């Protein structure tokens, strides 16, 4: 059995594009910090490359992207590709918020962002307690896979 990594779960947090919605971001920061995560919070108006640089620098397990203002469809597209290009293709990519323009059926939105390469997609009324469990699962699974691959 592979040994369980001891270092804290590290996540990069930020609001993508030219989005200024800072309230949810501050809450996510406080929430994950309180639960023992190491949070690199880039705040609002974060570019794709800033997300990736911060993730590389901190050897993060996951990038949690927020998009509230409706341009998510444009801003979030291509992030997985850039991650691959920059050598962290297997990083956990989550995205949440009011991801598209208008009130749309969430399953369609989920589908759309899944196909962009996001591992999980969250609506604005996300239950954060549940999300934290899922994040731990996802991170553990990734760490074990990496350990097994001997990387």
């Amino acid at each position: 059995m592979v040994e369980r990594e001891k270092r804290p779960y590290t996540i990069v947090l930020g609001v993508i594009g030219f989005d200024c919605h800072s309230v949810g971001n501050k809450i996510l920061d406080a929430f994950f910090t309180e639960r023992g995560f190491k949070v690199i919070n880039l705040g609002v108006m974060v570019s794709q490359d800033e997300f990736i640089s911060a993730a590389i620098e901190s050897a993060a397990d996951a990038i949690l992207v927020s998009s509230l203002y409706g341009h998510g469809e444009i801003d979030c597209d291509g992030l997985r590709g850039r991650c691959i290009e920059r050598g962290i293709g297997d990083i956990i990519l989550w995205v949440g918020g009011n991801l598209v323009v208008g009130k749309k059926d969430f399953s369609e939105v989920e589908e759309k962002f899944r196909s962009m390469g996001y591992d999980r997609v969250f609506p604005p009324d996300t239950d954060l307690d549940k999300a934290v469990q899922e994040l731990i699962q996802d991170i553990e699974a990734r760490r074990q896979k990496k350990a097994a691959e001997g990387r």
Partner: protein
Amino acid sequence: MIDRKMSKESFETQRTEVLKSWPTGADVDFDAAVALQRAIPEEKNFAAAMKKADAEGRTLLQPRAGVALVDEHIRLLKYLETEGEADLLPTTIDAYTRQNRYTEAAKGIEKSQAAGTSLLNGFPAVNHGVAECRRVTEAVSKPVQVRHGTPDARLLAEITLAAGFTAFEGGGISYNIPYAKNVPLRSSIQYWKYVDRLVGLYEEAGVRINREPFGPLTGTLVPPCVSHAVAILEGLLALEQGVVSLTLGYGQCGNLIQDVAAIISLRNLARTYFSEAGFEHVELTTVFHQWMGGFPEDEAKAFGVISWGSVAGRLAGATKIIVKSPHEAMGIPTKEANAQGLRTSRQIVNMLSDQGMLDSQAVQREVALIERETRAILEGAFALSSGRDPEEAAVRAFEAGIIDVPFAPSNQNQGKILPMRDNEGYVRIFKAGSLPLPQDVLDFHRERLEDRAKAEGRLVSLRMVTDDIYAIGKGRLVGRPL
């Protein structure tokens, strides 16, 4: 009275540069613009409509709305004026344009054309340019305002005013602190001086354009004294550049007494500060924003929040109310949902319009409190400037945390202040940061919060702030433990 008007040369130098910053700038011709504006009938002039409503004691209704393409946008506005019975129309600008990212906006227009639906969260007026924007203002029969959130809105103002828009929202503080991450406050104030000066030039050419600083800031539990201080500084900055029609704003907090007191005190404070600064000829009006924080996802509950905002705005005697839609929590509303929010608000405002304003001892007490608080902040700010210069006062006050906006994204803001609701739902101050409030006022706030904590059987804590942020979205006003 110190004349702080931007000089003609400085304005003209900037103008050349501004109009060159994107190709559509070339189409702006001030003289033609003045001629166009002068030909606009009185009932389509925003300033005139606000003045009339104020004189008649009426409360007007205005939605937010904007989509990527011109024809679609025209259809939207026409729907809001017919089916929505809106008194005033908006043109909400997309977030790329707000950051002067016209290339991204162009991409958004293209993608929207391809998708057959707007992928932008607003109307990219700069990309569309003067002639296309003019189609918008000509297509409708109500006054139209530009609503956005742009730290540097010089080109946007040039283009939209030349296209017949008669009102322009924003200000150097209120369109920076909540809307940007690292734009120096001094820069945004300079950009907005230009906008205000431009409005002043129209004024001097006989065209009255309405200006409206953005009252609600981050929209989330902003104590009235904080937003009032910003509103008055921005008001002064605008008046200095020759603005005459000025609408000061406030975002609903949720407690009726506090909301009514906020509008009353805003008017009192503004009148006093403006006349003390030597501005006697101001067409001062107010705007009340229905709850600007997180909304309930359920539409029926959202209708409740919308209605409550209309009740408070009307009982406060605001000149206009900015209306939300039942889709608020979910996404930019369809035109139908937007019109629904308007009609719900219309029914409330109509039913209340004959009933006068709310007044009571409790209101008067709260008015006195807000006025003392705001004065303390403003005087703290002016003390840092020479000759009561609002620009210097604003810049230094933000540096020193004397003005501090809760939850703001900007690094120009200290972000040490934390608001919290008391047991009756008033927004009070939990952490004051460096706000220069008198000790007895701070004690009063603390007492009220302790009262609440006691009622809830817990200690005053950060957790209560988070609970309050979620509360209205979850169907309550105060974020009580379950």
